[in-house]
């Protein structure tokens, strides 16, 4: 053992491509399962959420406009960056959750592979869900899935990294931008994943990550009029009714998911049908 004092990381939020502290100045303590102090991450405020929504809204048009090929490559780049930093993520998962190293390694492996899987959907999802509709008349008529807009997500408490990937990747691969609330007890994976994002050519504002309390932030997300959809997979089932009710003011699309499948991508896409006459 060297006597060197190691340099610890300050865990901050990730909003609009930058790493700000919460404007509220509030933090909370994260401890390992055995009670050892690990970090003081931010307790994000309503203002932090608003800032993240503004960034996500501003970024949405450009991200949506990016070609499917480009979006797929950027998601793949996230996988590349995560692969290169496996050790760090394994260490953090072990430190916070005190699972075995093998289990943590499997979670990181699954996370990398999951990103690659989602990356491949970017230029295939519209052939899965789109249609050329044979209407009874001289019209060319087609339906295509389109991005819904700005989506918020509550990541599950565990697995903190793989759950985060499932809360981000299906949403952005469809052309949406996202504000995700990380696992409260194990936010380190999320905040380190922000560093992966920052080095993967993801445009600023496309992915925004908050840390804090679910009970505090979820109602703000549900009632925010400029959030179009909400993934509540990480929220306990008992809270779902309340959140869905709060989301009706702008008829927010609110879903929870059990699996990673294309339906998870399509849930936050809108189908657009276009008609045009055929003739001379």
């Amino acid at each position, binding site marked *: 053992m060297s006597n060197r004092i190691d340099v610890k990381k300050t865990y901050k939020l990730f909003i609009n491509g930058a790493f700000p502290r919460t404007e509220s100045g509030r933090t909370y303590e994260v401890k390992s399962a055995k009670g050892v102090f690990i970090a003081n991450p931010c307790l994000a405020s309503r203002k932090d959420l608003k800032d993240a929504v503004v960034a996500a809204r501003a970024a949405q048009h450009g991200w949506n406009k990016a070609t499917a090929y480009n979006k797929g490559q950027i998601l793949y780049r996230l996988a590349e960056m995560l692969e290169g930093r496996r050790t760090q993520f394994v260490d953090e998962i072990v430190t916070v959750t005190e699972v075995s190293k093998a289990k943590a390694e499997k979670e990181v492996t699954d996370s990398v592979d999951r990103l690659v899987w989602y990356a491949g959907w970017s230029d295939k999802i519209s052939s*899965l*869900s789109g*249609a050329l*509709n*044979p*209407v*009874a*008349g001289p*019209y060319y*008529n087609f*339906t295509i899935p389109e991005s*819904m807009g700005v989506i918020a997500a509550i990541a599950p408490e565990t697995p903190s990294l793989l759950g985060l990937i499932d809360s981000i990747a299906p949403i952005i691969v469809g052309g949406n931008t996202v504000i995700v609330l990380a696992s409260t007890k194990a936010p380190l994976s999320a905040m380190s994943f922000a560093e992966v994002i920052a080095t993967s050519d993801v445009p600023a504002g496309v992915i925004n990550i908050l840390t804090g309390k679910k009970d505090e932030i979820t109602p703000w997300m549900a009632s925010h009029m400029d959030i*179009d959809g909400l993934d509540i997979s990480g929220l306990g089932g008992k809270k779902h*009714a309340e959140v*869905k*009710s709060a989301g*009706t*003011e*702008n*008829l927010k*699309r609110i*879903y*929870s*998911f*059990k*699996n990673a*499948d294309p*339906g*998870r991508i399509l*849930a936050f896409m*809108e*189908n*657009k*049908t*276009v*008609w*045009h*006459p055929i003739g001379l």
Partner: protein
Amino acid sequence: MGEKLSFEYAPAPESRALVSIKPKYGHFIGGKFVAGSKHFPTINPATEEVLSQIARGGKSDVDAAVKAARKAYTTTWSKMSGKERGKYLFRIARIMQERSREFAVLETLDNGKPIRESRDVDVPLSAAHFFYHAGWADKLEYAGLGTTPKAHGVAGQIIPWNFPLLMLAWKVAPALAAGNTVVLKPAETTSLTALLFAEVCQQAELPAGVVNIVTGDGSTGALIVNHPGIDKIAFTGSTEVGKIIARAVAPTNKSVTLELGGKAANIIFEDAAIDESVEGIVNGIFFNQGHVCCAGSRLILQESIADEVLEKLKNRMAKIRVGDPMDKNTDLGAINSKEQLLKIRELTAAGDSEGAERWSAPCDLPGKGFWFAPTIFTGVTQAHRIAREEIFGPVLSVLTFRTPQEGIDKANNTPFGLSAGIWSEKGSKVLWASQQLRAGVIWANTFNKFDPTSPFGGYKESGWGREGGRHGLSAYLKGVSHE
């Protein structure tokens, strides 16, 4: 302007001899017509003549209908093969075609819409919806929801008064094809074609309880929405009521689809074919008296062509024939109810008071019944109520723009997102605009076209889900990964 057309049309009234309307109706539950307890009159909005007495469904009626639907689902419909279910739907489609004139006349009498529209649009499209969905019944495993998609069970369906039979078809046909049974409530002012449809179900020998129809008002609808025996709610109507339903259903496991309001932009670019655009504007807002959720109620005109388009539009509007809906030459029929007429008057008065300029086509409105002349407002700003709120009448708000991006921004400046129109002769611009517009249905160089194969439904506050096509069918099936 003001110059009258030099020739007039002789009246060409459709005969009403084909329909027989009973003095009083009950509900259709478990395959039988059962007496109602309380009744209210349904009138012809073009004459205010009382056509019949309609039952106001209460708790016991809704309970009985749900019970009948559950029994039919459990004992018959869920056990029948898709192939056999489909054959019932084909039968229904065929009988609707056979009795199409009867449906059209009854629809026009009860709703006030021109016979030309009920005859050429509502009824044939309704039959087409049943025919289309009939073919899905034995092909559900190919609907993209996995190999074993399942019906929800009992669907509660609440429909509006603007396309009474067509909205019934949009709801009932996919529900039955997917294997659900239904409890349907038609709108308070337009129950007659739904009750005639019940006769069609009898003629088709549809098993008892597969389709149940409970008539009534909003209170009856609320009983359906809140009924614990219902698995799926489908509603078409206002965004205001849609939000109430969404809130009511939030704590339950019911699946929901909502087709709600709109404030569609109809954008005319300077390179549009002007005469065709004018026809498209007229069709967009005056079709069905503007009682259309996807009506092109905001005309977004490029400034360089605004004067020319408005002059031609006014000329064209002066030739719209307003009057007897039973006359085959009529273009614009009666407003569906006094209540709706008052709403249109209230919103147009707000247009006046907020500073927009009103112009109405010169026309003689009948003395009896509910009528509103085709009207446009110019000088409308985005903050005006007539640019933001759904009027649901023959009233068009005109806004202008200079650059294409400004046109798109104005079009998208609304909490609604149901439909939009684009007029331009330039292909790349049409496709660009269709990508930019935040709406579920885009009509480019056309407007107000509908087809059972074509998914219809809104973005944002215009609703949840689609109707029509494979996308619409999926709303009646379990199998999607999210809940």
